[in-house]
């Protein structure tokens, strides 16, 4: 029987969830980029 590292499942699960969060980060960035374009084109002056 092969040795299964106890708790290693949690590490892999964390890595998978982190990968999803990594994708979310790019989605967030893309959204921010698109919003900045929209603001530049249609928003007029930037609010301070």
């Amino acid at each position, binding site marked *: 029987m*092969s*040795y*299964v*590292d*106890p*708790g*290693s*499942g*949690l*590490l*892999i*699960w*964390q*890595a*998978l*969830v*982190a990968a999803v*969060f*990594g994708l*979310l*980060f790019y989605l*967030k960035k893309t959204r921010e980029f698109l919003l900045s374009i929209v603001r530049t084109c249609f928003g007029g002056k930037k609010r301070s």
Partner: protein
Amino acid sequence: MIPSTSFRDPAGRCCVGENRVLRWIAAEHTPAFEAFLETPFARRFTAERRLIPTRKLGRVEREAMECLPGMDREMLAAGEIYEHERVTFPSYAWEWPAEMLHAAGELTMLLALAALADGYGVKDATPDNVLFQGPKPIFVDVLSFEKREPGDPVWQPYAQFVRTFLLPLLAARWWGLPLADVFITRRDGLEPETLYRWCGPLQRLRPMFLGLVTLPTWLAGRGQAPSAHHERRLADPEKARFILEMTLRRSGRVLADLKPRSGNRSTWSDYMETHSYGEAAFKLKEEFVRLVLEEARPRRVLDVGANTGHFSALAAAAGATVVAIDSDARCAGAVWQRALTETLNVLPLVIDIARPTPPLGWRNRECPSFLERARGGFDCLLMLAILHHLLVMERVPLEDILALAAELTTAHLVIEWVAPADEMFRRLARGRDHLHADLDRDAFERACRPHFDVVRFSRVGDAHRWLYWLRKRSVKS
């Protein structure tokens, strides 16, 4: 060698003396430690008493320490010594109700998230880092904070947080598993694989179990891939921080979902409404205790068999620091909730006085037993409606019970003598009255005499119960 209660962190050691908690930190780690203490994060949470106040020992104090017997001067010279504010009564996760573990988890999450703003992270996330000052959790392992690598997206103690907070709370919620059953035999909490075995096929697919138990168990077979343990650094620090923050927030949401439900009943949680004597008798009992508290003015009270904490609250309202123990976790949870809501200085613990917590950890020296911590630590002991349980259910001799009481209190004991004719006594005896035929008030007073003098006694209405205020014999005034 400094007598040490913590030794796992190579950066330093903690030493608990009579009235002081000292921490030795190796010289190479002191600049980082002192920089941390100066961060806005540390200052804010120390001021709020959510992080233990810490100060560096001055030269004179340090030199005085070096003269103490048993001190390793070489080791002292190789680092700095800091003193932490002492928590009145240290307690451990295996003595807490689930509500307190949840509160400790919330504090850990709060600090982990707040530390991010100052560029710090927590390197471990276990209940051992938290103590309770009254009902309020306080983070005591200040060395747990370290400067985080900007490109590190991983919350290293995630698995530990799941094993020591989330899974024990899940098990307490679903199976009523007491925390003592988790932590006394398992320093590092519960593994997902253990809970997986306890679950039915459908339960494994419930959302709460899927992320904490089922998927980690299914993935565990793939855990031998070395990549699972490799350090990861991202080129983009913003992305790393986003992932880390999301991981922390998600863990916090799961923790919030595992908040213990209030209002659950247990064998003893309704005792205040269902006790065998009337309301008038209860008022007399309350008045007796109140008078003792007013006259004796105890500073530290241990309430044994506290139930829902009615008398603990009276003692706290009279200005005492109270430790309230009961073997029923639901009762202790209710006491904690009340103490927190009413800002009472009461620390509730799940402890059966007939089977108190043993010493635990490496060589049985890491965590002292309950009795070791409690002995002589209180100037007043309340033993209300508990004596007959110890006599009948536990079959502990009367003399032994009073001898233990004399060890625990330095001055006063308020004890309720419940005669064998009492309804509750008879219910517990279940027809074995002959075993208690020799128990009467004379026998009780005889058993008290070697340790205590009777200051006052009073019958609880027309019930077969008497309240005694006893003063320890060695105490003159």
